[in-house]
């Protein structure tokens, strides 16, 4: 298809690239939506870091404090005091145990953001490296590498986690977190690898790659400088899609006993608690749910901005 038209494929991908980072940042700064996303994400990160101590200091509520007065152990709507009047104490209301949802959402944000972003970066690095290698080398190597991916797809993930916990479950909270990253990272790169491989297989026969090859550029350099940047669009999009799926996977793993322990809660587990009571206490779902949605939107805008900024085809602009 349209092979003849490709003869004039530009070579600027090879020439430019020394100041890729600086160029990209310049272009990213010009993208208004991406900047808004960056600011919002920054606010959420800051709030989840600084918020809980501030709340504890001003209102005395922490994420796990169940009131000692039995009359207060109940769900209260946002900005409502125990008497039903307006009050500043619980801007997001309380859960069924009378705990402050804002404090819980902010603390959950620490977990979900850490888990979501770290695991996505891990899957980005492993998946891209694995997929690009398989796609570029092709043949037997590709065959073998992709069958490894297939086996990992088919293994019962739940059993892996159960066994992982049985052998390494007795860990400090920090050790538990590392275990969680291992469990999340071990699966999330698989589809990423397949996508990168597909892109690389298609790109490697293009003229600019052939040209690079003909001029004696080393394979590692071809992959890193030419193939990966050109495959970056779908990769970044898929990475932004990985963040929510990892956040939800975390909630599932906590069901198996992996990850953070109650009374700590991540956004995923707060939302799954909240959905039960959607008909009677809607704020229990809406508050963590909206926070999570805003975060994901910001990440997505940043991802789109990054994609455009790193796009080798658009580098001239």
């Amino acid at each position: 298809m349209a092979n003849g038209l490709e003869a004039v494929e530009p070579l600027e991908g090879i020439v430019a690239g020394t100041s890729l980072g600086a160029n990209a940042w310049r272009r990213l700064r010009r993208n208004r939506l991406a900047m808004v996303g960056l600011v919002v994400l920054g606010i959420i990160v800051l709030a989840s870091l600084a918020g809980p101590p501030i709340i504890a200091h001003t209102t005395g509520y922490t994420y796990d404090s169940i009131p000692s007065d039995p009359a207060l152990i109940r769900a209260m709507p946002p900005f409502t005091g125990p008497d039903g009047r307006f009050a500043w104490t619980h801007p997001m209301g309380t859960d069924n145990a009378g705990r402050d949802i804002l404090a819980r959402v902010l603390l959950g944000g620490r977990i979900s953001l850490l888990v979501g972003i770290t695991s996505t970066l891990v899957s980005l690095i492993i998946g891209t490296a694995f997929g690009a290698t398989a796609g570029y080398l092709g043949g037997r190597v590709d065959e073998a590498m992709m069958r490894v991916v297939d086996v990992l797809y088919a293994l019962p993930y739940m059993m892996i986690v159960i066994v992982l916990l049985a052998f390494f479950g007795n860990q400090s909270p920090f050790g538990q977190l590392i275990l969680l990253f291992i469990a999340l990272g071990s699966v999330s790169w698989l589809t990423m690898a397949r996508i990168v491989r597909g892109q690389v297989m298609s790109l490697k026969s293009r003229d600019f790659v052939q040209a690079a090859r003909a001029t004696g550029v080393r394979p590692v350099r071809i992959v890193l400088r030419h193939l990966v940047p050109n495959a970056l669009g779908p990769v970044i999009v898929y990475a932004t899609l990985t963040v929510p799926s990892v956040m939800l996977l975390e909630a599932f793993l906590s069901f198996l006993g992996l990850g953070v322990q109650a009374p700590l809660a991540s956004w995923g587990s707060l939302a799954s608690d909240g959905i039960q009571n959607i008909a009677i206490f809607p704020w229990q779902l809406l508050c963590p749910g909206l926070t999570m949605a805003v975060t994901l939107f910001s990440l997505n805008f940043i991802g789109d901005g990054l994609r455009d900024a790193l796009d080798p085809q658009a580098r001239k602009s």
Partner: protein
Amino acid sequence: MLRFIVRRLLVTVPMVLVVVSLTWGLIRLAPGNFYTGEKAIPPAIEQNLRQKYGLDRPWYVQYGRMIGNTLHGDFGSSLKYPSTSVNSILANAVPVSATIGTLAYLLALLVGIPSGAIAALRQNSTADYASMTVAMLGISIPNFVLGPLLVLVFSLTWFWLPPARWNGFSLNLILPVLTLSAIYMAYIARLTRSGLLEVLRSNYIRTARAKGLSDREILVRHALRGGLLPVLSFSGPALVFIITDAVVVERIFALPGVGNYFINACLNRDEPLIIGIVAFTAIAVLLFNLVVDVAYAFVDPRVRY
């Protein structure tokens, strides 16, 4: 190409054996047994149970039996449901999951590809932002939230659709299929958009445009093929998991699908059932990925094996 396909099909058998062997090892390593429950059972009864199910035999005998069963395609009787064979469970559950999964994926493709394409063609227009915002909503609202919300509105407030349960091809399918497809729809829309953007910027499309071809012609004749590569890569595993791993939707809508069986089998340490479902999943993964790899070559002739 034919040699490639034959080779891949031949590889399937050893691959499935590798997968079930690893799974078997995992089941061995996991704590607990199919018969443990809230009420403890006396050691003598435990001994009786182990004898009855051959768990007292040496490991290589048990392993050999499992491999033999797998090769014969008969996984024996479930441990948790002793009067039910794994094959009959699969025969009942796979059609349910396949129906819902296939419908959901078709819906996802039908909605996702056009909206992704429109967004790419009119990049940074209102249509682009609108469809991508909806896609992001699909991703940000987890299915365990979306399902109950749909039920609340359509089944419990307006009483239009049944809230749950399997009833063959009927109205019961609408809500689970919608719930299941939402996230895939969103993935496909976003992957289509980014794949197309990549292609639309390449020189041959610019040339085609210069020749005065309409958007529609460019899209259908040139761009869509290369631009759908990411969607294609994604579809192999996605189709497998929309069928075998739709646990949340199956639980919300009380559907007798594979995913629910599988989760319970893992929690119950029901070895034959786990092995059976894993073998099924492995075959599906290998076949679907083979189909995807073959499709690469058709969609994009530059891909060679």
